[in-house]
């Protein structure tokens, strides 16, 4: 069920920055492009608008009008008052109901209740920069609906931090139409994770996909605390070209009792085998390939296998960014475009002569 207040990532609706915010729009876009992110939904700006209504916005505006830009203490005080109002003011029934339904729909995909993250998703110009809101207002490992609603309010309130208020004043950004979307997203229960590049980083060969994979959360791979499995696949056929099983002696895994990550040893049996099944490996490669196609340039992605999701839907994209280091390199051996002779096709000059030599020696 979808309404103006809620948009699930997989609703298949054209993402709009002004209703979903930057982060929300990006998650919806990626899901639609076959790059599944951890499942979740966006509480749109319409929900914020309904919440703020006419009376609350009037109170806020009144407070803002009196603010003294040069008095830090005054700004802080006003900010605290506004945020206090936002945290206390009742949410309209229809918004509350829509949020509750969306939360239940998300949880219904899993056998038991899963922890979620709540993060603010600002529409571009309302806040100093996307990362300010996006990173500051991220609340992880939230359990239960009440915790979620509480943190949605915290995100909304973050529109009125001292810094945000000052920023808008200094840049003449009006408070009219000010709004905020909020993302609710499943915490990844990562059984294996890693990175993938849509080329061969040793020579820039773009016909390959290179995957590093290890158990647990991908941090161990990214930070280099384990030697991951290293697999190279052909980008066109997805056949494995080479693979090296890494040591991967430890893994970071979510601990449900403390809602945090704990490190533990990987036993010998699991170290000896690849941390991904064939099907998972293919799915990771396909994900990387889609990311490259979507962004039109070689990508370096972070991915994870979510143990709470069924096979076929459990490979999640956590991040995709352009690969810049290696993709500018030319492949090591670039075929001579003008070689017309067939003698070359028999490898004359290199391999054949060594063959001849070895036959003569034998």
């Amino acid at each position, binding site marked *: 069920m979808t309404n103006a207040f809620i948009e699930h990532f997989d609703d298949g609706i054209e993402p709009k920055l002004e209703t979903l915010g930057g982060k929300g729009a990006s998650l919806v876009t990626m899901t639609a492009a076959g790059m599944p992110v951890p499942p979740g939904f966006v509480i749109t700006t319409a929900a914020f608008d309904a919440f703020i209504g006419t009376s609350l916005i009037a109170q806020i505006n009144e407070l803002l009008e009196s603010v003294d830009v040069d008095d830090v203490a005054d700004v802080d005080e006003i900010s605290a008052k506004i945020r206090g109002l936002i945290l206390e003011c009742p949410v309209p029934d229809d918004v509350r109901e829509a949020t509750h339904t969306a939360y239940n729909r998300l949880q219904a995909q899993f056998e038991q209740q899963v922890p979620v993250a709540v993060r603010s998703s600002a529409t571009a110009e309302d806040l100093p920069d996307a990362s300010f809101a996006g990173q500051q207002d991220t609340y992880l490992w939230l359990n239960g609906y009440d915790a979620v609603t509480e943190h949605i309010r915290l995100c909304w309130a973050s529109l009125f931090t001292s810094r945000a208020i000052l920023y808008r004043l200094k840049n003449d950004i009006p408070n009219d139409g000010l709004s905020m979307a909020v993302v609710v997203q499943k915490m990844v229960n990562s059984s294996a994770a890693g990175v993938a590049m849509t080329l061969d980083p040793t*020579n820039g060969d773009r016909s390959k996909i290179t995957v590093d994979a290890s158990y647990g959360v991908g941090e161990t791979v990214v930070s280099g605390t384990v030697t991951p499995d290293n697999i190279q696949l052909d980008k066109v056929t997805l056949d494995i070209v080479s693979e090296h099983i890494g040591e991967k002696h430890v893994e970071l895994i979510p601990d449900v009792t403390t809602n945090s990550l704990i490190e533990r040893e990987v036993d010998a049996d699991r170290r000896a085998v690849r941390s991904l099944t064939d099907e998972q490996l293919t799915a990771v490669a396909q994900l990387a390939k889609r990311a490259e196609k979507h962004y039109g340039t070689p990508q370096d992605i972070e991915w994870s296998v979510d143990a709470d999701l069924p096979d076929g839907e459990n490979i999640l994209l956590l991040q995709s960014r352009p690969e810049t280091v290696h993709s500018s390199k030319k492949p090591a*051996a670039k075929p001579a475009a003008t070689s017309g002779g067939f003698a*070359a096709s*028999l490898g004359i000059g290199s391999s054949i002569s060594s063959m001849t030599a*070895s036959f003569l020696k*034998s």
Partner: protein
Amino acid sequence: MTMKSFPKPSELPVPEGAEGWEDIYPYYLVFQDELKEQEDEKFWFCDSQHWPTVFKPFETIGGEFAVKCLGQYNARHLMIPTAKGIDFRVHLGYLYMSPIPVPGEEVAERIEDFEARVGHYFANWEDLLAQWHTKVKNTIAEIEALDFSPLPEKVPFEDITSGKAMDGSERLMENYDRLIQLTYQNWQYHFEFLNLGYIAYLDFFNFCKEAFPNIPDQSIAAMVQGVDMELFRPDDELKHLAKTAVELNLQSAFDQTHDADATLDAIANMDGGQQWLEQWKQAQDPWFNFTIGNGFYGHDKYWIEHLDIPLGFIADYIRRLDNGDDIMRPTQRLIVEKERIVEEYRDLLDAEAQQVFESKRQLAVTAYPYVENHNFYIEHWTMGVFWRKVRELGTMLADLGLWETADDMLYLNRNEIRDVLFDVVMFHGVGAKAPIGAVKWPKEIERRRKIVDALKTARPAPALNTPPESITEPFTRMLWGITTEQVNQWLAGDDEDASQLKGMAASPGKVEGTARVIMHADELSEIQPGEILVAPITAPSWGPIFGKIKATVTDIGGMMSHAAIVCREYDLPAVTGTGNASTTIKTGDQLIVDGGKGTVEIVSGDKPTQVSGPGAHSHATA
């Protein structure tokens, strides 16, 4: 590093009862004591891909003609800069080969000739190939016309009046020589385009390997391979016949196909039967000149002479049609997938390289179909007619008391038969009682039969002597799958985990299923739907069974071996060149075949071997 070695020829034990085996083959085919040092220096690999079972003396003709003509095209015709021909010997009944490289200092001076010759063929491909078809078909027609009927009791009167002055013996002797000569001629034609097909393929292959380092061989093959080839025509004809039979409601006539005459009679008496028989007759010429073997053995059975074989395959197809299966090859899907692969690789190249890629690919696409299609014209059609003529001659000579059945003649080598013919001409001409051979050959054939049977009890060694450090010669790699890794794996042999076999990743896909080990084409009817075929080697003529199996595993063969090509065509996983799958795996074993990685895992060998019931050999009750 000390190199492990394969046994020397002299180190291989002679199976009990095979003593004196050297004498049954022509002298030039066996290792010589006087050349021991020289011959032991060379690395020989066994070509059990084409010659999986022991030669009877007459049957070496296929090996001799094929390998001689192949090598001569490299060495003296096309002037391949780096490769001369392939030296070959028969040892303990099996064929061993040793490629002869061009000495380093001679390579450069061959290049100019090579480019001119190869260039001419590629520039005139269509015309020269059309000419090839004419030449080959004319040769077949000439072989077909050879007459081996008995010599006349008396010279016909018209030969008296015309003053012909001959007695028919000249025809017998000449026709035998013509039979050998014409067959040799088609083997020469066989290689006129074959090596070129491989060169065009390798040209594109090497370009891809440079542009996309480590690109899987399968991808390159997929970008070149045609989807509709003449080699698949015989099988396609059977599928169409099955469809027609279902459309005309003739299914009930196909439940006793082992009796071809009765089956065809039954069809003739049914409504629509005549229409089906018309299609059946048209399909036969030439497409039933097709063997379930590989054309190199006198015992190979040809459809045209054993109509129960194609009828049995049709019955199988009818059953599957009645089950609602789609029996046609997934041609459309293969075309779409091929186009996707080509496009995706091409898009990875810059504009200039894309042009080179496309021109090289087009050349390979033009030249490559020959690599498969020639097989129908030579191995199937020419050799089918050849063996039929051999049997005609053998029967005629058996009637003169030289031996019992036509097949007994195969225990003589082809030059001994010339002697026999003069024996015959002589005794007949002078009016004696019987050829001298009547007292010599039956005994000698029995002796040789025992030797051949004894030789058959041993499998060939995969190779002989010390291998070179690396094997990079492209033809050897491509055709026989003889690579450095493969040779090392053969050498590692027993050290390896016996439940895991490695070979060439010949056709992608991963499946689990039950093994069916087929050592001989005659056992093909035992295969049950959904089984994994395990065999020393497959022949393209096994086509109809590829529609019902899940995967293929062979002992011998590279990316371009028949099993590999046919499996890609049928979209089935294949692992080729495992070296010993057919002897390691038993029928009934559970296997996981990964054709993308080239691995075969024996999951459980505990399942009891399935027993073939009385009906298991009949298509009608399978």
